[in-house]
């Protein structure tokens, strides 16, 4: 196949949009790395980006139909991996969810999300009904909840939470009847008080301060408050890379991972922050477009899973920085420093490009 042919079937715009985000992320991590605590982060981020692009290419080059065909095999392997880590993994920041490969810490639960998307796709694509039946619903919930339970057991609540938008989004697209939605919402509301009892005190605090950061300005409200100050004091054009007082002086914690949006907002201003959000919206709508044009149900479903995943990551992370969602430590896809998140995002990107590439039947 000629190069032009390949290029004509390759979604350059989606790729370019993602790379623009990755570039902004590298700038942000560079700025954060000017302060000693994250000094090696910049070079590592470059390595992760290169590795991510490689994974992206691998995933892109295998026809997604084959991936869907083997989805259950991959799924079983993943579950095995999660169990293995639960038993033998490394504990970092209270989560026993880490694997150390060549000196680098790596969180497989991030990548398993992509495999769960494939498994759900596999199950849903074989259905011919317009709406899901009860047994389908139960099956889907089981497929998603097994890894969720394992990840919760590993102690990584934030990552576990991100399986829900995947499941929810894909079920909605797969055909969820309104009464199911209503039932789930009712159940959720009913469970809330019970759930509240289950949560640890610090988790409750985090949720409460979302609504009122001044409740605890030095504790859990602190992060949100400082991040808001960073965003609010950046002005239109920002202070310039490396000059953000809030970011550079260590007021905003986890600046290169969870709060990179605050750093970019302070140092590149409102314009930079808007650019980031626009780029995400652009990437997401490109993905939806790929879904619309997809050749089959499995293509649409994969896109749904990926888009929901990225969307929720962005909304929760940026929402946290802006102070409208609870402070859950999840990374901003393509921007935050971190290897596991980068690899799963690039794998997802590869899948989306893959679906686009195979949109026509030859």
């Amino acid at each position, binding site marked *: 196949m000629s190069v032009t042919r390949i290029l004509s079937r390759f979604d350059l715009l989606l790729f370019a949009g993602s790379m623009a985000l990755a570039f902004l992320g590298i700038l942000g991590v560079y700025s954060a790395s000017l302060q000693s605590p994250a000094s090696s982060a910049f070079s590592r981020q470059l390595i992760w980006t290169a590795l991510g692009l490689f994974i992206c290419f691998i995933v892109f080059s295998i026809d997604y139909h084959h991936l869907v065909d083997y989805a259950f095999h991959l799924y079983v392997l993943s579950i095995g991996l999660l169990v293995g880590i639960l038993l033998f993994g490394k504990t970092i920041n209270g989560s026993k969810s880490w694997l150390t490969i060549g000196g680098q810490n790596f969180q497989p639960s991030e990548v398993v999300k992509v495999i769960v998307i494939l498994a759900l796709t596999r199950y849903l694509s074989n259905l011919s009904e317009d709406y899901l039946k009860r047994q389908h619903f139960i099956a889907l919930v089981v497929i998603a909840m097994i890894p969720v339970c394992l990840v919760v057991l590993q102690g990584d609540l934030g990552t576990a939470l991100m399986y829900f938008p995947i499941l929810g989004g894909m079920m909605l697209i797969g055909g969820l009847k309104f009464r199911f939605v209503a039932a789930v919402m009712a159940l959720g509301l009913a469970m809330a008080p019970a759930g509240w009892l289950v949560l640890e005190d610090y988790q409750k605090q985090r949720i409460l301060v979302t609504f009122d950061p001044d409740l605890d300005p030095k504790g859990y409200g602190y992060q949100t408050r400082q991040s808001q100050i960073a965003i609010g*004091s950046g002005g239109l054009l920002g202070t310039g890379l490396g000059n953000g007082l809030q970011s550079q002086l260590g007021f905003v914690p986890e600046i290169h991972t969870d709060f990179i949006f605050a750093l970019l907002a302070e140092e590149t201003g409102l314009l930079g922050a808007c650019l980031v959000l626009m780029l995400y919206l652009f990437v997401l709508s490109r993905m939806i477009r790929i879904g619309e044009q997809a050749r089959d149900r499995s293509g649409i479903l994969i896109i749904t899973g990926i888009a929901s995943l990225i969307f929720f990551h962005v909304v929760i992370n940026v929402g946290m920085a802006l102070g409208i969602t609870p402070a859950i430590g999840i990374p901003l896809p393509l921007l935050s420093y971190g290897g596991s998140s980068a690899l799963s995002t690039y794998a997802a990107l590869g899948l989306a490009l893959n679906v686009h590439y195979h949109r026509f039947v030859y």
Partner: protein
Amino acid sequence: MPIFQDNRKLVSRVRGLRTCFVLIFLVLFAKLWYIAVLKADHYRQLAKQNQVRIIPMLAPRGLLFDRGGQVLVDNVESSNLVLFRDKANDLEKVFEFLRGLNVPEEYLQERLHAARTRPKYQALTIKENLSLEEISYVLAHQNEHPELTIVEEPRRLYRYGQLAAHALGYIGEISEKQLKQADFADYRQGDIIGKYGVERTYDRNLAGTDGQRRLLVNSIGRTIEELHSVDAIHGNPQTLTLDLDLQLIAETELGETPGAVVAFDPVHGDVFVMSSHPAFDPNMFATRINRTDWAKLSSDPNHPLQNRVIQAQFSPGSTFKVIMAIAGLESGVIDPNDTVYCRGGANFYGHYFHCHKEQGHGTVNLSDAIRQSCNVYFYTLGQKLGIDNIERYSKLLGLGQVSGIDLAGEALGLVPSEAWKRKTTGQKWYAGETISVAIGQGATTVTPIQLARAIGIIATGHGAPLHLIKDQKLFRGPAMAVAASESDQLLRLENLQAVRNGMWRVVNEYGTGRSALVQGFEVCGKTGTAQTIGNAAKAKLSKEEAAKHPDNALFVGFAPRDNPEIVVCVIVQGGRSGGGVAAPIAGKIFQKYFDKKYGRPQGPEKITGPLQVASHAAELPPSAPPQGQPGIRQ
């Protein structure tokens, strides 16, 4: 899998998903707008309240000890005034306030300009070593000037002021030029580094690692909370080879006269004394030196900033005769017993050359000639040797090249030769010039350390690597002069003995250097009285004019004669008489060395003039040796 599926339902749902995405993103945009536009002033205000101050914690540099474990260079706490530029809203008011502390506005502007590339939240030192009055003045106005803070920082204290100033060196802020060099890539603007002497050579060993404190302060500058601090790591103390007692003698004896004294162990190369006068007080540099002082020092015609021991190039005068003697014996043109008859002068190449003794020395052999410093003997030897032989053996003894001591900026000196003259003047060498060179006049110049090293080679037969740092593993200096190893093989013991014999007689048999005599210590030496302008030039001047160019007095020597332990070289500029002025100084150093070695009672040294112990030190208890006393191990 079917080729075509009816996806229409799914597609329409996916479109719904997009709408959902866009709506929720609108919420994000709205909140962003609310924070960054509508409430921007509010948050900017909050950001200002978040006043963090980064207070640098300068790491104290390693102390410097003399070879006996006495502290030469210490650190004391100094109260410094720092400015936080990000908190200074009105610089005019700051300028005005600082005038009350005698900080001129131009100086402050200069500091601000130099620091323009540093982040504004970093502290900028404005004035160092505040007095108690100044401290209370600042504290009294703290509320009006939250941008100013007093911090305690270590300051270098050179305990003996000008003593060994050129060897110890000084420190200062890294220059913009240095910052651009690869060697200083890990330094930042405002860092303090060693700029001269040992402080410079061993900067990396002496410097510690600076720390910093991050303080959360309120709007009037009071600390609310310490965020996190990185402690400074002290620099490693180092022991030098200098001997404080000997150094004190050299400094006192030289006094106000320009000159240089160097003494070292010719076997191991430990430099005991390095004194260059006039000197400067390195304590002046320990606070950021003010410009008028600097200008005064650098434009002083007596060059106090020059380390005469390694940088001043003098005519060796008669001290050169011992080098001539080695050249004559080694090249085989003379035998120690060959005699020359001195009648007070002799003709060479149509010119009459005088001896310093008008009535003549009579019949002299080599050791007589050295003892009495007979010019006619060495004229004759010079004629026999020829300039290129003189050049060869001068270089073999280390002249015309750096000694390799661990200090920067050594001068080369000059060893003339036919080729040198052709190259520099385009003229051929006149044989008559060789006659002047033979008695250490003419174009030959040496630095005191070169001359001393040549004597060391004669004393021991080999050139030891000269160093000021005691721990030789740390040694850092220019590539070693090659002559050392060559001379090891070339110089024959009987020739060395013949010259040493002559030098022994200089001191011990009523020779020119008898003032250097130390009972029981077998001092050997050679004096020199070197003209500072040529005979021809002198003849043109009036008597008064000529008196303005008095001869330099030199003495080089070593002791004891067998198994030498110390070489001393003294140059007193304008001292007029090597035997009368330079030799007694060397004698006192030999005597002190001898007394110390054999535990003779030593009277307290009287320290006069600029050598008084630094005033701060006088008020302080003696500095406690650092933990583990690494500096005192011998």
